[in-house]
């Protein structure tokens, strides 16, 4: 009996220390994540103007109903989906390829890691400004492509064509984040025990078989992690699209949900409607993350 009491008190002691360590983070998240989420949910039920000092009118789900009927909002969903698919799939594939390439190098491994990772250090705003200069009609983008394609004088309309401007935003995002995910894959690859490859070698497996039957299955947790992070990053994309439209690019093709939220709140002063849009984006992100987690749990890896 006394043994049970003492183990119970040790458990309690452990739990107390657990709470002490977790509390600062909980306070931080409560202030900067949970409060804004609940506040946005609450605000989305009101017709509220950003500058108005009058009490806002309660309108229930009207903001959501308006959005679901709005062609602009559906265009934003389209732009976000196109951007996310067009960016996160290449990001996933190429960061894995680059990671394998870096790991297979005997020399200059560090150099390649720094080279791939360096764009991720830049802020998104700086990256977009650099690319705005490249995409200027008289900029390096046209000059390089015309040199490679031997097509002098062609304006590839990086920002001045509805398809090209979408490609341009994807290109900037890909360039900025591919190194970051490459590093995550490198860590994942390094954690696979060498003994498995050695055993496979004894059994006569070649590099291709190693990749398909050892590397890829054992890399599944990293792949899931990268796919979730990259997809969430893509869904939250803002600064590239914002700066490109400031630089003269047409809004419609790249009016992703976050940009629409910004315009609705800051330009149009409709904070209630913008909050409703952010709640919808939150639900979409939550749903995708849940689906990915669900699928990743199907067969967990252990060495």
């Amino acid at each position, binding site marked *: 009996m006394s043994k049970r009491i003492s183990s119970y008190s040790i458990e309690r002691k452990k739990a107390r220390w657990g709470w002490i360590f977790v509390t600062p983070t909980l306070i931080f998240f409560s202030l900067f994540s949970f409060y804004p989420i609940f506040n946005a949910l609450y605000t989305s039920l009101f017709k509220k103007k950003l*500058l108005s000092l009058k009490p806002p009118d309660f309108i229930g789900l009207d903001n959501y109903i308006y959005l679901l009927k709005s062609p602009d909002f559906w265009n934003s969903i389209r732009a976000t989906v196109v951007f996310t698919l067009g960016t996160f799939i290449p990001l996933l594939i190429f960061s894995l390829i680059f990671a394998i390439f870096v790991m297979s190098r005997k020399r200059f491994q560090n150099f390649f890691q720094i080279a791939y990772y360096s764009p991720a250090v830049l802020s998104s705003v700086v990256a977009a400004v650099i690319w705005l200069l490249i995409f200027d*009609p*008289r900029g390096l983008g046209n000059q390089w492509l015309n040199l490679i394609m031997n097509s002098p*004088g062609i*304006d590839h309309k990086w920002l001045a064509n509805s398809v090209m*401007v979408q490609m341009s935003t994807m290109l900037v995002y890909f360039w900025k984040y591919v190194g970051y995910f490459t590093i995550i894959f490198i860590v994942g690859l390094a954690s696979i025990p060498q003994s498995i490859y050695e055993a496979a070698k004894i059994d006569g497996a070649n590099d291709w078989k190693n990749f398909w039957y050892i590397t890829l299955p054992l890399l599944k947790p990293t792949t899931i992690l990268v796919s979730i992070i990259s997809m969430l990053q893509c869904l939250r994309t803002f600064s590239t699209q914002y700066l490109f439209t400031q630089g*003269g*690019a047409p809004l419609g093709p790249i009016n992703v949900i976050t940009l629409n939220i910004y315009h609705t709140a*800051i330009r149009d002063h409709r904070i209630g409607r913008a909050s409703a849009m952010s709640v919808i984006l939150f639900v979409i992100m939550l749903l995708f993350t849940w689906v990915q987690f669900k699928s990743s749990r199907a067969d967990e890896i252990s060495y």
Partner: protein
Amino acid sequence: MKKLFTIFLFVLLLSMTVNAAANMEITFWTHEDPNRTEIENRYIAEFEQANPGVTIKRVTSGSGKIQELILTAFAANQGPDIFNMSIEDEYAYIVNERLSPVDFEAAGYPSLQAIYDAYVPGVLDPVTYKGKLYGLPLELTNWCIYLNKKVFRDGGLDPEKDYPKTWEEMVEVSDKIAIREGEILNRRGFDFRYPYYLVSTVPMVEQLGGKLISDDGKTAIVNDEAWLKFLKFMQEWGPNGKILGSPTYTNARKLFNKDNNDIGMCLTGLYQQGRIRSDNPDFYNSGDWMVVPFPIFENAVKDVPAAYYGHYYMVNGQKSEENQKMAWKFIAYMLSHGEEYLTKVNIVQPTVKLMESETYKSMPYSKVFTDDMAKGHVVYYGENSAEIQSLIREAVESVMLAGVSPEDALKTLKRKVQEVLDEG
């Protein structure tokens, strides 16, 4: 002992209160303009010396960024004491009652009427709301065409005779001046100021008989034919038409000062002269630039130049009464230097005295601006004017760049602007 402690506490609180009153900080947010910064920093030093204990904190931001900074600050009830923006961005602050009405006594006027009498008739109308005055103008600006004579001559044109009087001539002249490498423009004849559609492109529609909002304020986008013609003109101007310009090229107004043979004409106000003078004194003194009126369409039904707009100094109504009074006193002090603003910054404060002064009349090309202003009207302003401007931008840039037909763009524009009007 207890009594002594109470007295000590009282003295401490009193000294803190006196200290707080004696040390008043006035925050002043404005857009970047190096020429203004130079003289306003001096006014601040002089004002602080004349009003001990008062500190003016002047903060500048880019002219495209300040709207957002002020808005978010006000939304969090943390707006500055003094700010200025263009009236189409400021009007929402008046309607939402976020501002302090002008304190005529603090501003040094005997009555409110005296302020109205001091300014050119009508210029205070945009800041008069429910019988109260909410702003004093830092500048009243209209835009005309600045022209680089060297570029004209290089294009085989005589700037004095061949400058464009109509938009059709603007296309022809720009085509002659343009230097292209295939589809890429290395030198543009002219290009628009793309984000500012209410100021410069709505008047083009009005020349053709169209209107942004009907006279009764209930219908948006009046006269489809005029709007369609305007949208088609812009489509032809862009990279999918005659390749004369595009929002994706560097802002023409910025390039103009450099005199680098990459732009022939740009659209801007009298203030540009001050900027040319400080950016490129050789070009300013060369006499190789001139200013001509805003063009009109050949078959225009109305002669409408670019709309004029005001930047008004405003005071945050959420600040203490003392701060509001001091803010108006400081604004009046700055605005008492109208001639210096004109000669050093080239911005016009529309007081009767200044507009009739020899200093204004002797400014290069001031007559061109005055004549255009006399024919024009103030820019469209309303609670949602900034939103409407963005919708026009979306429409124009969709036909110029995104391959949307003018008919579809017009349909979308009409629907969206009408929705803004209906929602209020």
